[in-house]
């Protein structure tokens, strides 16, 4: 039996919603929100996306994007250890976290976009697409693996922090690709690409410490008014394949 939501369903204090085995919830882009009430999935959790605040469960969603759209400041969209076939985006959001269960456990078959947002955190997952940043402030991307794709594209954001992220086999592309913007790349690994870090259009990034670049055509290239401040990294080869305004 299917139950199709036609809007968000709120379970208030003192009320219990019981979902019996065999009932399939079609979330239809909506969520089941907890306002002090309880949801009891007797047949087990149906692979929901969780919305939490400070570890407290606030709601269940059937997909990532509706959860992000609903999330308010200070809330976390928590994914389970499974594969999601989505490319979610944050648009004009503030102080929201997207949290997986760890690299190799939570997998996103797609990329993530962050647009006109501030203090967005993406962490603990594997992705097949890039993190695309456009006009953001304070984006934190950590403990993540990107496979077969550009790691991140930055179009004019400020203070983008990439920490302990890995991109392998990026191919004929760039790892971190910044057209303007500022940020840091720390303790990360980028390998098997044309260029690991490409900065242009006045971008300014600290590249270090302790990044590992391996088997790239170029490890860092800063052009067109961009600057890279490289500290204590391991490079693809010697002499270091760095070009442009790299200090």
């Amino acid at each position, binding site marked *: 039996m299917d*139950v199709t939501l036609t*809007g968000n*369903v709120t379970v*208030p204090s003192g009320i219990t919603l019981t*979902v019996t*085995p065999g009932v399939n919830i079609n979330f239809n882009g909506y969520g089941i929100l907890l306002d002090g009430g309880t949801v009891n999935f007797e047949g087990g959790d149906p692979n929901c996306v969780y919305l939490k605040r400070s570890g407290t469960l606030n709601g269940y969603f059937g997909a990532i994007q509706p959860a992000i759209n609903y999330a308010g400041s200070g809330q976390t969209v928590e994914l389970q250890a499974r594969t999601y076939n989505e490319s979610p985006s944050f648009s004009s959001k503030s102080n929201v976290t997207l949290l997986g269960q760890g690299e190799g456990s939570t997998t996103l078959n797609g990329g993530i976009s962050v647009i006109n947002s501030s203090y967005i955190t993406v962490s603990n997952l594997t992705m097949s697409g890039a993190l695309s940043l456009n006009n953001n402030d304070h984006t934190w991307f950590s403990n993540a693996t990107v496979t077969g794709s550009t790691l991140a594209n930055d179009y004019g954001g400020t203070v983008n922090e990439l920490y302990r992220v890995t991109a392998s086999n990026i191919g004929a592309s760039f790892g971190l690709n910044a057209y303007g913007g500022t940020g840091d790349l720390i303790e990360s690994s980028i390998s098997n690409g044309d260029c690991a870090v490409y900065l242009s259009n006045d971008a300014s990034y600290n590249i270090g410490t302790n990044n590992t670049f391996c088997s790239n055509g170029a490890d860092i290239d800063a052009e067109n008014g961009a600057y890279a401040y490289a500290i204590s990294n391991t490079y693809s080869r010697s002499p270091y394949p760095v070009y442009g305004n790299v200090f």
Partner: protein
Amino acid sequence: MTLNLDVYYKYPAAQLSIIVRNDLHGKDGGNVGVGIYPAAATSHPSPYTVPNVYETQRLNLAAYDNQTVNGKVWFFNDTEYPDPNRQSKWQRVKLDLHTFLSENALFTTNSLTTDDNGASFTAYLETTSFTTSGTLSENETW
């Protein structure tokens, strides 16, 4: 020589306190059918205290399908529910002890005994009228 003394005695049948009711996911409501055999069941609001019922009598009970209570449609013995543990059914409930009676909407109890005193004969109805938008106002089972 053997002397047998047989004593035959009669005592009046005990009057019983019995309630017949619907259980709508934990709440009362709607109508139930009750009749003392051989009288056919007639409809009464739930819960219904059966008057003048005594041990050895039997009850004709009727659960009614497709009842609308507070905007929700409740059914008995339909197949909408996928969970076999949640099909509509009759149960005897006494002191939180549930005894399965029947999955039939219409049925006749066994002869009542004094152990049935204080019991409720309960029709557990189900519904597929769910709150799919907005705030739940009561417990709900999907």
